[in-house]
């Protein structure tokens, strides 16, 4: 109900802006028709000495706690690249849009970025629901999206590059770790939407094949803050560990309730796949100390590239601001796009895609390589433990980057999932 007037206003604005764009186009004819002759392909505005890219993140709503940090690191990468001369001699001009934790808004803003702003590529989205909402928009307009967050896999799009982990680079290593620790009975808690439901389907298939038991499975609406009953259920189940796929600040309410119910990392550890350093800070370390996370990067990950990244981020946003996995993946995605564009010598999405296979970047998480076939990247899996200082200490890693396997073709138990 509340969005009705604003949609009308946006449409009006969009219409006016589109009209203005048409007038401008016919007047100077300066825009490059990037994607060959296809009339459906997006027009990339690389006129003048700048090239525009879109940043599409939730700056408000329940997901803002996470997505604002992603935008921060995207801006950092763009600033760094611009300081060194830009891409193909052009400075990158970021156009930022607020997805407002609302999937239709994401699709609407993606269309605006592609059609009105003429961006060469878009970086952003966090929840799988927002990615699913914009996927057809990018495919229809033949424009590129760089998606920086771990997700549930089982997806491939010719116009999306996935720079976060897919299942076999995060969730399966986390399950392997729990198994190695003797945690056989799991309880699944997640937000009620695409990612947790698909991830839990995979977890259940894994458990069946590996002699683990799933004692219960509960979903709370995204943004929900009432977790007392779920905490009671988890407690009564006497599970060995909880696998947490809650997103956004539902985690605040969940961990408060978890502690209130008398549960702790010592009695029943929680493995989370969607809370990183920034979320740890705002949830409060007194609720999270000792709990586990599964990611590919932590602020504490060793390496010269990470030292530089952490230093640059803190210099730009404040010494108390931590860096996290999705931020690192977002930062890396801008550099990967730059490398692809430079190899292709063009901003044309088709040529950029064709140039993507084998592109490498010395990322803060370590060397990453683009797998051109799946448009995912090779990443190292890391399990971490949350410390009292709010930082996450690595307790296990996979040793080397794992080849992305979004459809879990390498696992016999996963047949039939996709």
């Amino acid at each position, binding site marked *: 109900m509340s969005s009705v007037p604003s949609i009308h206003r946006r449409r009006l604005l969009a219409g006016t802006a589109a009209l203005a764009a048409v007038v401008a186009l016919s007047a100077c004819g300066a825009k490059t028709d990037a994607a060959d002759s296809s009339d459906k392909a997006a027009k990339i505005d690389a006129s003048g000495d700048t090239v525009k890219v879109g940043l599409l993140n939730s*700056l408000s709503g*329940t997901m803002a706690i996470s997505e604002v940090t992603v935008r921060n690191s995207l801006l950092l990468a763009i600033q760094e690249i611009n300081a060194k001369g830009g891409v193909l001699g052009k400075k990158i001009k970021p156009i930022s849009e607020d997805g407002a934790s609302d999937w239709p808004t994401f699709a609407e803003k993606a269309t605006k970025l592609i059609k009105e702003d003429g961006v060469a590529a878009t970086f952003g989205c966090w929840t799988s629901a927002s990615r699913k909402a914009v996927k057809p928009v990018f495919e229809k307009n033949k424009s590129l999206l760089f998606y920086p967050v771990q997700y549930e896999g089982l997806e491939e799009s010719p116009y999306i590059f996935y720079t976060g982990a897919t299942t076999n680079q995060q969730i399966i290593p986390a399950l392997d770790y729990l198994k190695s620790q003797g945690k056989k009975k799991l309880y699944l808690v997640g937000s009620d939407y695409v990612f947790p439901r698909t991830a839990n389907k995979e977890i259940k298939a894994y458990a069946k094949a590996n002699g683990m038991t799933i004692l219960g499975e509960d*979903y*709370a609406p995204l943004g929900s803050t*009432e977790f007392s009953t779920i905490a009671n259920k988890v407690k009564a189940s006497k599970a060995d560990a909880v696998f947490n796929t809650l997103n956004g*600040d539902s985690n605040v309410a969940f961990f408060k309730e978890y502690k*209130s119910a008398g549960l702790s990392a010592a009695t029943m550890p929680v493995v989370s796949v969607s809370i990183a350093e920034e979320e740890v800070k*705002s*949830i409060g370390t007194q609720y999270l100390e000792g709990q586990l996370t599964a990611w590919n990067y932590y602020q504490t990950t060793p390496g010269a590239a990470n030292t530089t990244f952490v230093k640059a981020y803190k210099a730009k946003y404040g010494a108390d601001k931590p860096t996290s996995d999705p931020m690192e993946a977002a930062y890396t995605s801008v550099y990967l796009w730059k490398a692809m564009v430079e190899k292709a010598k063009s901003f044309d999405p088709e040529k950029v895609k064709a140039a993507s296979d084998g592109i490498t970047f010395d990322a803060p998480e370590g060397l990453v390589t683009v797998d051109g076939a799946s448009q995912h990247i090779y990443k190292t899996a890391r399990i971490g433990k949350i410390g009292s200082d709010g930082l996450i200490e690595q307790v296990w890693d996979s040793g080397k980057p794992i080849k992305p396997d979004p459809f879990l073709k390498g696992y016999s138990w996963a047949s039939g999932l996709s």
Partner: protein
Amino acid sequence: MTVILGQTFTGISIGAVLLLIALGLSLTFGQMNVINMAHGEFIMAGAYTTYVLQKSISGAGISLLVALPVAFLVSGALGALLEWLLIRRLYLRPLDTLLVTWGVSLMLQQLARDIFGAPNVQTRAPDWLTGNITLIGGDDPLTVANSRLFILGLAVAAVVALSLTLRLTPLGRRIRAVVQSRDLAEVSGISTSRVDRTAFFIGSGLAGVAGVALTLVGPIGPTMGTNVIIDAFLVIVVGGIGQLRGTVIVAFVLGVLQSVLEYSTTVSVAKVLVLVAIVAFLQWRPQGLYTLRTRSLV
């Protein structure tokens, strides 16, 4: 057995939260017939008051206790201001109050976004509220979270204070007189406009107290009011408009119903079942659990 007891306690604690958010509304909507859609934003104001006080006062426990009266005053003042600016012009057009206060609620949300930023924020609970009390020990212990007990205590205190005010004080008598017959109260020498504003101050102030309680449960954000306002209206409509007793009973019944259903099904299914139960109940008793009996003909 422990499970049933545990869920009942959880239900009572959910009911206490519901009661707190509905209590102020039962005064402004129930007694004064104003559909105040901005009530949720007064709750938000109370929550942000807690947040601001915690930033300026170091001890989490002290800041929480200070926040209770301060949030009452801040939200109450906002309510009285809203009444003075807009609502007093609309007492004879209750449906219009819905639109006007809805507009105000959107403005207040945007204001919060401008002042505190769009991302939600959290407060730190004092140490004495993060633990729990064991009621039944042994193998399968029954524990109750301290923060939930605190909210329950707060709800009971607020109900007692409100009902005593309505029953025993001159102000309460005047409010009840205005509710029963505005014209008669006016000709009897009661300044109805002043009574209206005071009642609005109290109702909105109670929303502020609810906001303080909600900071113990989850995050604080510009849209937190819209998340709770529907529940608050449900409690009052089912309880019987203008009936404090109905509000109290229905808040706890809905809380226990929600928690028991949630335990045996899922969160979403439980929400649907509770709504179905409410619709069925209103078919049977459209006027709600209790009704106001007056001598007026309307």
